[in-house]
């Protein structure tokens, strides 16, 4: 059986579901193909940070645009996916880290991102529960967090309502391009045909790019995540550190979500799990930041699979080999906040042939060809 449409989206993460939604809203016949359930991997299992501060400057225009969409998520999807503007507090644990916080203030200013330095005296006054290891912080009042389990499914549901077709449990096993048409074949033998293909398949996007003659050095990346039992609510801001080896946030119901480091994975299965040694190390880092967490019970840990690029920023933009093919993958562990805007940007690339967001830093041919 063959399904014909105008745009095929490969991958049902937050970005892919947002692309399906934005295209459907503009009247495009779009079909999204997802191997499992939407939001099963990086989009669904990540930390849930909705953070602009600290990003690579190239990502900030996307993050700014996405933040605007996050603010309207309830209107767009019917749920805010527990998005809460708690502010994001990035912490320094020494002079060198503090210098990095200060240096980033200029970057934030250039991109209109509100950011306030919390100095050595103020930090323990304003956040008396921080441990002595912390020497300074920078606070981004517009940042916050959301429930990653809800974003992609909510965007997919909104896309369905707008007329998109979301095909879950549809694993693509072959892809071709001939005579201006992409033809994708699923494991169950269904064929999908369209003149435009959006490769938004996370880590597996690397294999798709390779199939069209433009391999990139993408590696699997598994966030190492854990959550505690509920304890009385006291950690209001989403917390990070310079260097990113630990991050934690508390939700008002009391649970503390703690991440840092990387787990193990097998993308072929696909299968991912946190590493116990990493979990214990991250818990130790967390308790240095917030000593009161000592004795709190960890009730679950988990992971999933994202794609990591060598320079830590994704591939976004048109293919250099195949007309009609556009990529957006390899979000390197920080795509959750960007997802909504990526979908909007992809719809503009497809329908308008351009976007206001500068994408040059993300071009697929920025890596030297493999030897």
């Amino acid at each position, binding site marked *: 059986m063959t399904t014909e449409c105008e745009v095929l989206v490969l991958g049902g993460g937050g970005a892919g579901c947002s692309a399906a939604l934005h295209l459907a809203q503009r009247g495009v016949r779009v079909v999204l193909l997802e191997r499992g359930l939407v939001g099963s991997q990086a989009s669904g299992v990540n930390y849930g940070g909705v953070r602009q501060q600290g990003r690579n400057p190239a990502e900030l225009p996307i993050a700014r645009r996405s933040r605007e969409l996050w603010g309207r998520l309830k209107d767009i999807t019917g749920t805010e996916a527990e998005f809460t503007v708690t502010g994001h507090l990035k912490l320094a644990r020494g002079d060198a880290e503090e210098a990095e916080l200060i240096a980033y203030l200029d970057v934030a200013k250039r991109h209109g991102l509100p950011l306030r330095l919390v100095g050595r005296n103020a930090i323990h006054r304003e956040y008396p529960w921080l441990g002595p290891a912390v020497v300074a912080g920078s606070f981004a009042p517009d940042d916050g967090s959301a429930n990653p389990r809800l974003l992609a499914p909510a965007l997919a549901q909104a896309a369905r309502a707008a007329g998109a077709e979301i095909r879950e449990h549809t694993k693509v096993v072959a892809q071709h391009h001939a005579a201006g048409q992409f033809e994708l074949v699923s494991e169950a033998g269904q064929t999908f045909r369209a003149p435009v293909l959006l490769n938004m398949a996370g880590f597996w996007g690397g294999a798709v790019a390779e199939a069209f003659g433009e391999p990139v050095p993408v590696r699997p990346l598994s966030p190492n995540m854990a959550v505690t039992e509920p304890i009385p609510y006291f950690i209001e801001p989403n917390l990070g550190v310079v260097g990113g080896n630990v991050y934690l946030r508390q939700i008002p119901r009391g649970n503390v979500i703690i991440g840092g480091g990387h787990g193990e994975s097998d993308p072929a299965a696909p299968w991912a799990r946190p590493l116990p040694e990493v979990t214990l190390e991250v818990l130790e880092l967390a308790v240095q930041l917030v000593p009161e967490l000592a004795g709190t019970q960890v009730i*679950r840990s988990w992971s999933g699979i994202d794609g990591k690029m060598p320079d830590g920023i994704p591939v976004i933009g048109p293919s250099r080999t195949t007309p009609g093919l556009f990529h957006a993958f390899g979000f390197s562990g920080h795509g959750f906040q960007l997802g909504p805007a990526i979908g909007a940007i992809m719809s503009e690339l497809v329908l308008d042939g351009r976007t206001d967001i500068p994408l040059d830093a993300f071009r697929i041919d920025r890596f030297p060809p493999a030897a």
Partner: protein
Amino acid sequence: MRIAVVGAGPAGVRAVEVLAAAGHRPIWIDEAPEGGGRVYQRPPAPLRRDARALYGFEAKRATALHAAFDALKARADWRPETLAWHIRPGAKRLHTLHRGAQDVVEYDAALLCTGAMDRVVPVPGWTLPGVTTLGGAQIALKAQGCGIGRRVVFLGSGPLLWLVAYQYAKAEAEVAAVLDTTPFATKAAAAPGLLRGGATFAKGLYYIGWLRARRVRVAEGVTPLAIEGGAEGVTGLRWRDAGGREHAVACDAVGLGWGLRPEAQLADLAGIPFRFDALQHNWVPVRDAAGRTPVAGHYLAGDGAGIGGAEVAELAGARAALALLQDAGQAVEAATVARLDAALARQQRFRAALDRAFPFPAHLAAGLPDDAILCRCEGLRAGDLRAAARAGNAAGPAPEMNRAKAFSRTGMGRCQGRVCGAAAAEILAAELGQPVEAIGRLRGQPPVKPMPIAAPRPASEPVP
């Protein structure tokens, strides 16, 4: 060869016995301070009483198992009060926690004898103070020498219902009623098979007869309506009899349970596939009759590998240890293997009759009212889970168990669905119009039980 045995209940003790006899010194882990498992749990020394009072008809078995355990402790690397919280089958490492100290156990072969826990069906009011599981009620009596209340109702089904009620009555607690949700006819139909159980079947009849003779109120085929009470605790229980008439009974405690479910989180983390056992109405890890699993070097025995009871667990523990030895190329006595296999097969037939006699009351779980608490850790009601299954849900309908968990938080709390999972599956399946085995099972994630975050390292202590 480095062998790790997790669990020192009937299966674990008999497994270590076989391994020690073959010249091995396994690393032996249990959460409890002493061996015996839940079924033959030993009270702390100051509360010791004679075995007959503690274990009734099982006194001889309990005493024998304890004696075997005591003799084996020195022949193994015995690690009591130790939680195995994660297992990595590829790396062959177990991660353990003992009184706040983390450790890693490297092994070549692992035998998991992780036992079982009570299977619960939520009833409106089941989270009131004074409600406990049948197993919990029994442990209170056995290990602490106290009851769960002064006037107790026992509700549920299965052999444990009658045994615990009998034990409470013998301990001179007032048993206000024994309410069995299984109709008499269901049990009668399974009677021919139950006769295979011989002594076990006879003991069950004895308990029931003993309770009736003492004019304890007994009813079969009942439908529980609500446990009543308030912040002070339970005050009574309302139920409907098989004829549709409503009754109320005053009490200050309720013990409830519907058989057991495997504690199979380690097997899950070890990557062993699971199958739905329609008769037991449980998801059980896949293994052969000897306890071998599809994951090389990993063996299962006892209730953690599918509910069989303590007698079966002893046989299965010895058999799995022999399988482990056989796979390692060690000679084992063919006659011993054959004797164990025959005994296990015989027990299997009795067990099947028992499961038919006391089927899981899926209809009670599926029919839990919308406003009744389903997931007590997260404070979720049955209606919250049903909403997650509906198309009107903002994130779309949840087509399977883990997605329903993701949307609604059912099974996301401290117990990770070990308590509410079975009932939650029935509710979701009914809402989706699917058989319960079609909607999957909650995925296991480490740690298998809550694990405290360690205190910060003192500044003077160097980071290793």
